[in-house]
């Protein structure tokens, strides 16, 4: 564990998000076991790790789309489990989430998708909403695509539209679920730059779930590796690059075999193929 950067005013403030001893899963399958995690205000925190390691589960816990079996998830010091529907929705209005494939409303245009949260939650008139939507679309470079339908935009553009929609209500916390998955290198670079720029310009806190080492290390202040139901390593991108932890090394060097086995557990091959050693 490494302390990454020099102390800043944000470091002295209480963390925006905190997981305390969280155990969580789906049905009887436990995904996270007794996990502690702190997300400092104003930082970009990257959650990395193997598939099924619980990265997206952490995002779902922070949005209370999933309840922990044990432990607490705190947002701005408040235990999310204790909130009623109204208070939970008030907390969610302070969050924005970018889903893996954008989750745009397919029956609404790009403009109406971005306007959706504004129309639902604000009392400002249509003229003001128009200006706000165009500003958000300008921030992601898609002001000219306002009249297109989601079926008419590429995967990378859809992700940017979803990003504009997620920041429409000026959230304090942005949650990104695999923002680089399936994107070409140009779109990936654009997405990474946007995440960093929005974090700086809006002064928000960001949590990025990603597999992409290069792009994620370039924008993250802190990296947390999740595997086997817990945090296995944590630190700055530079510290992670220098890490000797076998799992972190396998992940960063993209080795096919290591602590994470290439082969799924199976009976010996000679048993399956009916071959006996001479």
């Amino acid at each position, binding site marked *: 564990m490494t302390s990454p950067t020099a102390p800043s005013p944000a470091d002295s403030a209480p963390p925006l998000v905190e997981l305390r001893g969280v155990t969580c899963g789906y049905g009887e399958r436990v995904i996270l076991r007794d996990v502690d995690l702190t997300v400092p205000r104003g930082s970009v925190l990257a959650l990395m790790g193997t598939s099924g390691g619980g990265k997206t589960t952490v995002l779902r816990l922070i949005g209370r789309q999933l309840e922990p079996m044990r432990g607490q998830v705190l947002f701005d010091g408040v235990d999310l489990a204790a909130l009623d529907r109204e208070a939970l929705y008030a907390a969610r209005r302070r969050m924005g989430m970018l889903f893996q494939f954008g989750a745009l409303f397919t029956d609404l245009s790009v403009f109406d998708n971005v306007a959706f949260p504004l129309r639902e*939650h604000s009392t400002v008139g249509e003229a003001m909403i128009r200006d706000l939507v165009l500003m958000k679309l300008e921030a992601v470079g898609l002001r000219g695509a306002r009249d297109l339908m989601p079926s008419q935009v590429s995967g990378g553009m859809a992700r940017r539209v979803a990003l504009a929609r997620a920041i429409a209500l000026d959230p304090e916390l942005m949650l990104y679920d695999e923002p680089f998955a399936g994107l070409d290198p140009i779109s990936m670079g654009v997405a990474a730059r946007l995440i960093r720029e929005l974090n700086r310009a809006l002064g928000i806190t960001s949590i990025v779930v990603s597999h992409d080492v290069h792009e994620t290390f370039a924008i993250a202040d802190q990296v947390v590796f999740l595997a086997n139901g817990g945090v296995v390593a944590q630190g700055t991108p530079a510290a992670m690059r220098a890490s000797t932890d076998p799992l972190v090394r396998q992940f960063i060097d993209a080795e096919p075999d290591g602590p994470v086995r290439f082969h799924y557990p199976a009976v010996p091959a000679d048993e399956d193929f009916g071959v006996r050693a001479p």
Partner: protein
Amino acid sequence: MSWWNPTDVGRATRALLVDLGRGARLFVRLLASLGTTLQRGRLIVDQVHFLGNHSLAIITVSGLFVGFVLGLQGYYTLQRYGSAEALGLLVALSLVRELGPVVTALLFAGRAGTSLTAEIGLMKAGEQLAAMEMMAVDPVQRVLAPRFWGGVIAMPLLAAVFSAVGIVGGYLVGVPLIGIDAGGFWSQMQGGVDVFKDVGNGIVKSFVFGLTVSFVALLQGYTCQPTPEGVSRATTRTVVIASLAVLALDFVLTAMMFSV
């Protein structure tokens, strides 16, 4: 799952009770949403247009053919007793009391119910409902409720269209084709159909069927597995459950209306 293993039976029963409880809670939330949904009437109007207008073709054509058949079969029976002029009354009573609401509900389940289930299921699979939740917008209020009340409003209107077109169908077969007296056809109908007992009961039935079909379709979409296979299964379940529920409720309602 084996039926002789108490653990499996217990687990299945518990799962069934959980599903029933979840369904009942959703139904209550949808009913309670009427006030807030009416405040955003535009959403309901859109759904009445989407569900009702797009079902109009199948309802009209089906109504016409059902009317044709009623005309032919009714005449075949009535002419044995020398009361062919009562054909208008027979066609009208059959349609407004029974066939209009029931056949419309069955067609509505197949045409609009499946579309509702698939739409909600695909929204769920595409994480659109989760995205809405994360935007602090309740999907039950914003997505499900307008569709539910849209379906409830559209059903009696469609049943009325079905019955009206069916009566025209019966007239076309009875009067121009077979040669029954047109005055007798219409006057028997006018004299024999009671606005409250016959038409009113038909409207009550179609309203109840509207609640049933819309709720079943939305529940199946909302609780389906968010996978292509899950959505496809949910769509099939909508047709099966909604159709059986309509037929069973029709018997219950008819029995209650007879006893009044």
